[in-house]
Every structure is written in structure tokens, then in C-alpha cells.
């Protein structure tokens, strides 16, 4: 965990409201463990925006880190106005990682909304390692997609309005792909996205008793375990009245990646 002033080398809109930023930060880049980890960005030097903004790492190349972010509110607006050559203050790498899967597990990767970054990185890593897998990315309309719908290559896009790829959310596509895959091998699902999406995925994976890891988001104060804000409820069969860390878990330092069967969304 380090704080580094990173120099921005690229920042552009890759789909409607979706931006990609690259920056040089050797000290942090050298310590990144893998998909799931995130950084915490001080977007505003003034107190106009008091807290840092957490962003998943979408890839690391040498000393460069890439993030993919969605224009959401004030903080991400400021990020989108930064130009190459300017610098930003970054804290990281933070959090844990998805477990990697071996050749015969045939994982399904599902991403949506602000949760595309770690899923895309995982997809690239699995390609490098020649691990067959399915990638499903959801968005509202075609304009928000920056990948190509390519069923031959097991890349499926979904849109709420059907303007590209499969009509609807990622969930029906995931369910049908899972049925296809499960006859061939043991399945595993890696997911990241908005909470309603993760809830729906959780239901499906519970129904089919399939192992699923999810990277969660929650409101974060510090990202390093000191403010105790970003809690998520754990599934706990023997809840105790007086407990610390038994009912609630800190997404920033215990997560953000959890086995779906250990948490309550």
C-alpha cells in the first residue's frame, strides 16, 4: 500500500459515459496482485469533494495502471476533465483478488455498470493463459458498450433495450450459458456490478448451487480499514450480540471479493 502522485498518460471516453484512464505509477503498479484490487483516488485537491473515490484496476502494464470508470457524479466528472500530462494522487493497491481458475473450470465472467473493470482484466488474463471462458457484459443501450458482441468468441453483450446483443439484463444470458457449460464441466462465476445485478446473480447461483465470487462496492471513507464505514453483512449462522467483524465485514480490507455464499446482499 502506497501513496503516489501518478502522471496521466491517457484519458478518453470509450463508450457513452464510460471512460478509460491510464497513468504511470511504478510504486503502486509493482505491488498489484491481480483482478479485484482497487485504488483510491483523491480527485479534488480542495475540500469540495472530501473523500477519495475507489476505482477497480482494469489492467497493469509495466508501470502503467488502467482504470475504466463511469461518469456518475461530481468526482467522476472531475476525473473526466483531466488531461494527459496532469497528475492525480493515488492510494493503492487495496483489497483482495479473485481466485484464478485452471484450464478445465470454464468460468463465466459477468460485469455490468461500474463493475466492468476487474471482469475485463480477468478476461484478458484468461486469454493470455488460454483458459476458455464466457464473458457477459451488461448495459442499458448499445452506446454504452465498447466491446463487440461476438458469440463465436464467447463474448456476449446484453442491453436493456435490445439495441445490441441479447435483450435484457445479464442474468438470463448467464443462466442459459451456465446450463450449456455445466453439462461439460464444473462451473464458476466471477461477477462485478451494481448491487441489484449481484443480487439477481446470487439467486441464480444459489439455485444451481454453483460457486460464485463477487467483487462488491460500498460507500468508502478511507479504503484502508480505519474508518469502518464500508461494511457488508456476512452470512452468519451463529450471530453473537457482542461481536466485531463477525456480522459485518469491511469491503475495503476483507474484500472487495467475496464468495457469494458468505454474504448477504
Amino acid at each position, binding site marked *: 500500500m502506497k501513496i503516489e502522485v501518478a502522471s496521466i498518460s491517457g484519458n478518453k471516453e470509450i463508450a457513452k459515459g464510460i471512460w478509460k484512464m491510464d497513468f504511470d505509477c511504478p510504486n503502486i503498479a509493482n505491488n498489484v496482485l491481480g483482478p479485484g484490487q482497487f485504488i483510491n483516488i483523491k480527485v479534488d485537491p480542495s*475540500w469540495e469533494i472530501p473523500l477519495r473515490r475507489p476505482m477497480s484496476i482494469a489492467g497493469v502494464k509495466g508501470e502503467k495502471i488502467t482504470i475504466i470508470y463511469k461518469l456518475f457524479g461530481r468526482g467522476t466528472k472531475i476525473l473526466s476533465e483531466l488531461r494527459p500530462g496532469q497528475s492525480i494522487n493515488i492510494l493503492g493497491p487495496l483489497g483482495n483478488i479473485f481466485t484464478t481458475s485452471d484450464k478445465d473450470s470454464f468460468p463465466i465472467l459477468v460485469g455490468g455498470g461500474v463493475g466492468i473493470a476487474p471482469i475485463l482484466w480477468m478476461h484478458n488474463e484468461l486469454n493470455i493463459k488460454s483458459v476458455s471462458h464466457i464473458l457477459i457484459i451488461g448495459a442499458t443501450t448499445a452506446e454504452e458498450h465498447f466491446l463487440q458482441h461476438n458469440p463465436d468468441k464467447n463474448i456476449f453483450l446484453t442491453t436493456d433495450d435490445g439495441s445490441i446483443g441479447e435483450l435484457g439484463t445479464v442474468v438470463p444470458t448467464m443462466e442459459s450459458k451456465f446450463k450449456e457449460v455445466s453439462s461439460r464441466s464444473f462451473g464458476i462465476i466471477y461477477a462485478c456490478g451494481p448491487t441489484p445485478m449481484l443480487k439477481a446473480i446470487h439467486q441464480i447461483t444459489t439455485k444451481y448451487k454453483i460457486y460464485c465470487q463477487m467483487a462488491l462496492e460500498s460507500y468508502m*471513507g478511507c479504503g484502508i480499514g480505519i474508518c469502518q464505514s464500508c461494511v457488508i453483512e456476512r452470512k452468519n449462522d451463529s450471530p453473537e450480540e457482542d461481536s466485531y467483524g463477525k456480522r*459485518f465485514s469491511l469491503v475495503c480490507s476483507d474484500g472487495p471479493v467475496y464468495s457469494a455464499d458468505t454474504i448477504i446482499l
Partner: protein
Amino acid sequence: MVDLSVKIKNVEFANPVLVASGTFGYGNEVSELVDVNRLGGIVTKSITLHPREGSPPPRMVETPSGLLNSIGLANIGVERYISEMLPYYEDLDTNIIMNIAGSSLKEYITILERVEGTSNYLSGYEINISCPNVEKGGLEFGVDCDLTLALTKELRKRTDKLLIMKLSPNVTDIASIAKAAELGGADAISAINTVVGMSINPQTRKQNIFTGFSGLSGPAIRPVGVANVYIIFDAVDIPIIGIGGITSADDVVEYLLAGATAVQVGTANYREPGISIRIIKQLIEYCEKHNVTTIRELVGAIRDED
């Protein structure tokens, strides 16, 4: 050479900049990022008798120049503090002040006695009295002079270490609470804890914080903190530790001029865990520029005339 050191009771602080309870964890989490030995001191997260899970989320929300929180005193409890944290503090070269919270007079006493009964390198205790007293129908200790006096007296009897009472600004007359703490034998006053606030989402019509009422901190409350320190300085003779919205050396000087002997940095740690180290450097620059040879000259040195 500028002398930044201050002394409260028999405790020497290399500089007047401490980090505030609940904003620096137990001190170990940030040691990768910050050389904690350069701090004036660390006030650790409030400890209760038993471990506490804290409030359900959401626990925090940003507000203009600050934030609201209701963590619900999530903490590891006194036994784990003793077994896991105290040994770590032995190796540190800064003052560690244990912050204690209780829901009854007895609970505060039990925690303090338990820690006093172990060998430890703590410099002292800071008592969080912004806690509801279950024996008095949830009335906060810190809003009542008699409760504050009784609590301070009982704790004073049980320790010779530095005993600091941390006051809440959510009272009608903070001067009388401060006097009660002084009368009870406190060595110093910390002020202020967070200011009661609330935030509601106009779209969803829901509270932004699970518990509704929550505590405001950050630069937004700095003027409240400075005013309270100014009032307390007038009311008591014991030293004051100023808290609330500190982000720079100028903010520290503001508190010192109002009457604080030392300060604590809170919310700013979330943005910049090493901010206190920078503030200490800036303080030296301030002193050099203004021909201040010892930081103690500044305490209460507000210029009221001309």
C-alpha cells in the same frame, strides 16, 4: 531551531499534533504509509468492555466540506486491545492514548481498571463521554455536569496516568461541563467530538445514514471547534486539546491561539493518511516565518486589542 514540544501533566509530546480517535484505527493499519513515530501522539479508536459490531450500513456520507458518520463504536473490545494492541505500542516511539467509551459508570471503570492492571506503555486515557448512559435512560454523560463530574472522579481515583475528558459540542453550556471535568481531577480537555447532524436523500426520501442522527466532522466544523476551545480556555486552567476540521498548520495555529495546547487531526486522515506529518513540517515553517521560538508561545495568544 523551533521548539514544537509541549507537555501535558508529565507527558512530553515532541510536537502538538496528534491523530484523533476513530480516524487512525489502532495505529497499525497505516504504519505502511506513515512514520507514526513522528506524530505527537495517537489516540486510538474508542474501546468498549465487549467487542462491538457497530451500526448497520450506510455508516458514512459526504457533506459540504465534511462528512457524517455513525459507525456505532465498532471495536475489538478491551481484551483484544490488551492482547493484540498493547504489545505493538511497546515498540513505538510516540505517545499512545487509549480512548475509552462506556454505557455505564461501571463499564468505564471496569475498562480502565483492566488496562491499569496490565503493564503497558500507554501515555494516558482519553474518555469519550459522548456515549448514552443506559443507567440514566440513555442520557449522554457529556451533556450532564453531575455525570461528568462523577465519572471523572471515579476514573481519577484509579489512575495516575494522563486523564483527558473528551467533550461533546452538542450541549448548551460546554464551559460548565469542562469545569466539572476539571473539578473531578481531569488533566486535560479534548474538544470537540462530532456535531450532531442528519442527511436525507431527496430522491429516495430515505436517511443517508442508517441511524438517522449522525456526527458531522471535517473542515465544516472547524469554526465550532475553535469557538468551543475559546470558551473552555476561559473556563478552566487545565490544558485543552483542540479537535475539529484541522487540515493545515494554519488550522493548528488557529486552535492554539484560541487556547489549545495541542490538537488532533481527524477526518483529514481519510484523504491523506500522512497529513499530520506534513502539518508538523508546515508548523516549523510558520514558526520560523513569525519568529516563534517555542510553539507554547501561541497558546491563547490571540490579539484582542488594536
